[in-house]
Every structure is written in C-alpha cells, then in structure tokens.
C-alpha cells in the first residue's frame, strides 16, 4: 500500500516537472491586443447560452406535441436570437477592438508571370505547325462539345407545342360551363361574363376556355364575314389573352353610363382590354392583336353551339403564331 503511495507521488512529481519544463520557454511576443476581463459579461453570455438550450428543447417538445407553426417559429427564432445576442456580447465585451494592419497583396508577381511565359514558350519550341495543331484541336474540342451536349435533345421539347395547336372547337360542339352543364342562350344575360368549355373535351387545353357575353345587338359592329357569328348579340372569345397568355377574367360592364365608354373584356395581368362588340379588337393595353372569336349559333333546344373554329390563333403571339 505504502509502495503504491510512493509510486503515485513519484508519478505526480514527474508529471508536474514535465509541465514546468515547458513553461520555462520565453513567452512569445503577443499577437492579440490585451483587453480587460469582463466576468459579468461572461456570466451574461453563459445565461444566454443556457436560455438558447432551453428554447431548443422547447422546439423539440412543441414539434413532438402537435407542432403549432407559430410556437415552433417562436421557439426556434428566439433560440437563434439569444445565440445571436450571446455572440454579439462576446464580440463587444470579451474581445479587444483591435486595429490590425496587413499589407494589400502585391499588384502582380512579376517573376512568376515571366517564368510562366518562359515555360510556355520553351515547351512549344519543338512545334513547327502551330496553326495547324491549334485549328485541329479547336475543331476536335468543338465537335466533342456538341457531341456531349447532343443527348440533351432526348429531353424533347420543354413545352408541349402540340397542346397549343389542338383545336377542341368544331362545328356543332356544344358549350358547357365548368360543371359540365350545357349553356343555353337564355342563360347569358347582359353585363355578365360566362366562362364556357367545349363539351367532352379536356378543359385544360389552351384553346378550350372561352368567355361568353351578351352585347346589345344594336351595338354590335363585327368585322365583315362574321355577321352571323353572334345570335342575339351573344359573342364568344378565347379566354387566353393574346399578350402573354393569362386568363381574360374581368368584364368591365358600365353600370353607370357616362363614366366608362363601353363594356370591355379585361385581362388582369397587364390590363389588355378587348372590345367584345367589334370582334375582340384591342382598346387599350399591351396586347398586339385581337382576341380570337368563336362563331356561335343557337341549337334546336336553345343551347349554344360552335359554328366552327376560332377566327385566329389562340394564345400569346409567340414567334410564328399569327392570325
């Protein structure tokens, strides 16, 4: 037992001695500025860190028990917040406000620049046909680049352009509303906007949705050749704006006569305004061409049917698409 004690003492002395020999080195020149200790600030930081830990635990508890978004946000946000305050207290109270100096890097390394040039020219010295080699290397690189990019083509067109061309409106197709009910001519009142779709077709095709409004027949002034397109003043236009393809979802119908000139179809995106009485011509706004009109007729039971396709291309005027 006593022996063990002696060993322990000897070991301790050795250990202490080892440490002391290190300490005998002369202290190095200080790099960091001296700064007075701030024990109270340290306590504050410790408290904030504890609080942050508690908030993090609270987050876990809230998460496990139902995860209310507001409480979660508060717990996590405040946790980050207390940590931020702790960091900032540390920064301003526990570190010196040093003004260290450093030289900006040299403008350029003249020797190395010269050496690089030298190495390049010396390596190229045995070459006699530089132009030829350069040209062939360039063409090989270009060809390989194109070859490597070629497989991208299998992705196919990003936009399904066929969708733009599919034409669900044909002679005799009935108009239905979004619930699939057949629209009758009597359903269309003055000053209201109806959205209609071709019966039995996919309503998500670009050319499907149309707007139907009733214009006072006396007001109608359709282009030549469209005389019989508007039974009883009911006109139909594509619902897709010819500017950038938003849905023409607003109908400006003047209920107080003098303030507005006349009823108009309005697109809510950039406010292109189309006149339903004159074949969808642009009254105002950035659209470059009229809304395509759909010829209408009234069927034997009073239902609305299409007489054929649109008067022009549906959708925004991308290159090539035109009336």
């Amino acid at each position, binding site marked *: 037992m006593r022996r063990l004690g002696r060993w322990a003492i000897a070991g301790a002395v050795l250990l202490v001695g080892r440490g002391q020999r290190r300490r005998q080195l002369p202290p190095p020149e200080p790099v960091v500025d001296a700064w007075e200790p701030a024990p109270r600030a340290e306590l504050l930081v410790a408290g904030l860190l504890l609080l942050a830990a508690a908030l993090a635990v609270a987050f876990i508890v809230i998460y496990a028990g139902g995860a209310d978004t507001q409480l979660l946000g508060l717990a996590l946000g405040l946790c980050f917040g207390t*940590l*931020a305050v702790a960091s900032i207290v540390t920064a301003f109270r526990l570190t010196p406000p040093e003004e260290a100096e450093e030289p*900006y890097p040299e403008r350029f390394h003249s020797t190395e620049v010269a050496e690089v040039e030298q190495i390049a020219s010396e390596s190229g010295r045995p070459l006699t046909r530089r132009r030829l080699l350069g040209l062939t290397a360039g063409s090989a690189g270009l060809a390989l680049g194109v070859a490597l990019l070629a497989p991208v083509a299998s992705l196919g067109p990003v*936009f399904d352009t066929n969708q733009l061309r599919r034409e669900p409106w044909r002679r005799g197709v009935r108009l239905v509303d979004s619930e699939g009910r057949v629209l009758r001519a009597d359903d269309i009142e003055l000053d209201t906007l109806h959205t209609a779709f071709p019966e039995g077709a996919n309503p998500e095709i670009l050319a499907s949705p149309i707007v139907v409004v009733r214009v006072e027949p006396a007001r109608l002034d359709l282009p030549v050749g469209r005389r019989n397109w508007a039974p009883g003043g009911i006109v139909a236009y594509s619902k897709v704006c010819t500017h*950038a393809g938003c849905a*023409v979802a607003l109908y400006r119908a003047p209920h107080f006569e003098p303030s507005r000139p006349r009823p108009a179809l309005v697109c809510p995106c950039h406010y292109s305004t189309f006149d339903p009485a004159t074949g969808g011509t642009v009254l105002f706004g950035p659209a470059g061409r009229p809304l395509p009109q759909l010829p209408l007729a009234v069927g034997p039971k009073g239902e609305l049917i299409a007489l054929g396709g649109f008067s022009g291309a549906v959708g925004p005027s991308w*290159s090539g698409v035109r009336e």
Partner: protein
Amino acid sequence: MIRRATRFLDERAGAAPFLRKALRYVFPDHWSFLLGEIALYSFVVLVLTGIYLTLFFEPSLKDTVYHGSYEPLQGQKMSEAYRSVVDISFKVNAGLLIRQTHHWAADVFVVAIVLHLLRVFFTGAFRKPRDYSVVMSVPIVGASLAVLVWGAGYPGIPSFEGRMYIAHVFLLPIAIAVLLSLHLLLVVARHHTQFPGPKRTERRVVGLPMVPGYVPRTLGLALAVAAVLVLLGGLVQINPIWQWGPYSVANGTNGAQPDWYLGWLIGALRLMPGFDVTIGDYTLVPNPFWGGVLFPMLVFAFLFAWPTIERRRTDDRDVHNLLDHPSDMSWRTAVGASVFSFVAVVFLAGSMDRIAVSVGVPYTWQIWIFRAGLLVVPPLVFVVTRRICSELSERKWSEVEPSMARE
C-alpha cells in the same frame, strides 16, 4: 490541445501556415459591408430549408383528388405537385414553418443582394483588381432571379413540372453556390476594400482580425439573420397557396399577383405600348419580349459593362483598394442614381392597379403618367444628384482645407 490539433492538421495537410494567416485576416469595418454577408447567410438558410422541402415536394402534374385535413379543398381535383405543397403546409410537422422560412429567405436574399450591388456600385468597389468579382455577381443575380421565377410560379402551372423543377432545386442553386464561392475566393485573394482614413491607404488594410474579434461578430450576424427569417416564417404568413386553389388555364386570378421582386418586369410589361413586330403573318417579336426579356437584359448589361465604361471614360487603369465616397464621384453617382430611378419607376408601375384601387387615379391615366415619368425622372435625378454631390464634396473639402475652397 489546440497545439495537438493544429499539429495533426499540419502533418496531414500542411495547413498551419494557411491557418496562421487566416486567423489574423483583416476585415475593414463599415456597416455597408454587412449587406453582402446578410445575402450570404440568407442563401445558406434558403438552401437548408430548400433541401428539406425537396424531400416532400412532388413535381408531378398528374391529377389527384385532395383528401386531406384542409376542409375548403376537400374533394377537389388538383395536381400532385399542388397537393404535396398543401400537405407540406398542413400535414408535415413543422412543414409550414420551413416552407414559409424558405420563402422569406428568398425575399431577404434578393433585397440584400440588390443593396450589396448598389453599395459596390456607388463606392467604386468594382474597380481593378476587383472588377471580375463584380462581373461574376451579375450571373449570380441572374441565376437567383431565374430560380425565384421558377419557384414563384409553382406549384401546379404546367411549366413547373419535372425538368423545370430540377432547374429550380438542383442546377441553378449549384450554379449560384459555385459562382458565390468563386466570388468570395476572388474577394479574399485581393482582400477587402476599405474607406480611406488614418493609416488606411492603398497599400495597407486596417481592420478587425478574424480571431478573436471578427468571428463572434459575423457569427452573431448569421444567427440574427436566421432568427429573423425563422420568426418571420413562423409568425408572418407568406404565399398561402391553399387559399388560391389549384391552377387551371381558365382561372386567371389564381396567383395573378406575382411576387414583389418581379414588380419591375410586370411594370415593364404593362407600360409597353401594345404592338407585335410582324412580317406578314409571322410574329417576329411578340410584345412581352420588350418588357419581360429585353428590359431586364439591358439592366444586367449595364451592370456588366459599367466597369469597362468607367475605365474608358476616366482612362483610369490603376489598382484601387480604397473606396470612394459617393459624393466625390458625382458623375458615377449621378448615372447610377438615374438608372436606378428608371428601374424604380418601372417597379412602381408594376403596382399601378393597386394604386388605382387605393388612391383612385384611373389606370389609364397612370399609364401615361408613368410613361412620362420614365422620360422625365431619370434626367432629373441625374441633374439633382450631380448638384448635391458636388455641393457635398465641396463642403467636405472646405472643412478639411479652408484655404483651398476660398481660392
């Protein structure tokens, strides 16, 4: 302990000399230098929350019927993509918090990056040797906007299916991250700029060293950014797509109000007079091109070309490490302010419909007021800024050297 760790690193990676230098790397101090850091930290939040969201989002346009906990949408037909976002918001624990934090981070990122860009422009930080770290920031901003546009459209509009989604969550973020790291590398390689002052010269940079002073400060800023974003994400609703309902071609009003940072594009689209450039039946240039493509390209081209333009004009090929006070460079400041005011007017024009509703000025008048504004405001801003600048800098110099001013 630290000695052992450092030696470990040094023996394996030869890292000690680098570490020694990095620890005392000097950061000049000015509040405006924080803008770039804020952008960086919100980008980190953006990426982390984004990664979480990709685990739950389904980029598919296949039809499905909603049978979830959110009553108003019960039984509605919608795309898988839309359903997955509604589920992230209502079914996934903490999903809504992460989603809203993601969106807020995007907004803060854009604001910070734009302010940072303005700071760099007006203080002349873009001059040699930092011209290329600035030129690089233009594609960063461009790519960020592209991500946002693809993100803003989602979910459910046809363009946001599989491949576009890959661009949003994978290609563009990686591009941004790579460009951002290059940008930071270049900045560090040539050191930060500083405002002139005692001991602060073109050859010596003065400021706070990385350790011990700078690290806790910037850590504090990073944590504060995270705190604000998470608090916003938890407490302030943003982009509640469940209220707008699933997208369909026939329902224009769904989400027709784009995010605010697209306001300048919307404004440009709305102010543009309506015409298409056509040859016969062939549409050569559709109208949205002017406002939606050409206008932003011109703005980016301006930023891109500015270092060259200025070098041509001033014939100044020197290396600059000291920043300018905007008032001392009246020409640059005036041009910048005038271009900025042009974009700002277009941006304001993006909210013409709101103005019409809240102030009551008819929309048709506003179109003409804003178009006139575009012609009048920028030159006016140019002249006024130039005046203010020369006056300010005159006053400053007369304080420094009264005799000089009197002469």
